[in-house]
């Protein structure tokens, strides 16, 4: 199904953590709110990337 090694997906983890936390940090001052915002951002990014993945996967079935 994947044309690359699944271990390559590990590259995604540090990016996701750093981007989510920094973005959350630039929206709030309270660390609890920062973490909550970061979790929401991580969830949103992952869902979006997952959606793109599914779209490309479906396109790949027809090409």
């Amino acid at each position, binding site marked *: 199904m994947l044309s690359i090694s699944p271990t390559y997906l590990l590259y995604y983890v540090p*990016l996701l953590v*750093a981007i989510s936390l*920094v973005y959350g*940090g*630039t*929206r*709030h*001052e309270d*660390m609890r709110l920062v973490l909550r915002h970061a979790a929401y951002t991580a969830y949103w990014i992952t869902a979006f990337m997952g959606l793109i993945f599914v779209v490309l996967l479906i396109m790949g079935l027809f090409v």
Partner: protein
Amino acid sequence: MADRSESVIEVDGRRIDLRNRPLAALLAWLLPGGGHFYQRRHAKGTLYLVCILTLWIVGFSIGGVHVVYASRHAGDHRWHYYLQIGAGAVALPALVQTRRINQYTSPRTGVTSDEYEPLWGGFMAPPHRPVSEEKTDQVSAWYARHGAGYEMGTWYTMIAGLLNLLVIYDAYAGPLGIPISGRKRKDEADTPAQIPS
């Protein structure tokens, strides 16, 4: 003397003194989180420092420590560096290395002299010139040696630089969406937030 209240804002129920905002922004650029430490926002300063420098170091390492260099030479315009330098002082050695290699590269032929030796064991040094897509050169050797790590390392360091731009803004003006003057604090001090029904 500047009115201190102009640098004070309130966010999430906390008063923040942004102090000298341009200085804080400069410090934030030099060292991710540095501006926040200056403003005594230690928790956020630590968060930024750890996140951005970790991303930077991981990217730099998986790219074989060759992903950050500055070059505007023909065939090797390293535009990625414009984003990488957003991370501040950690990217500055590349400028020193570029200055050095330029001294050993003929402007007429574009070829680096055999006498050239990069500083610090080649840390952030540009590749020997000429560099071109048609021929094997030092850049293609880096790609061959590190594979996807070279690409990802470049992305990591670029994203670290971009994230630090957000951090610089946060140091200068506070969290996004919050006015940089103290108006919001004064207005909201007496009036609790209204929740629309």
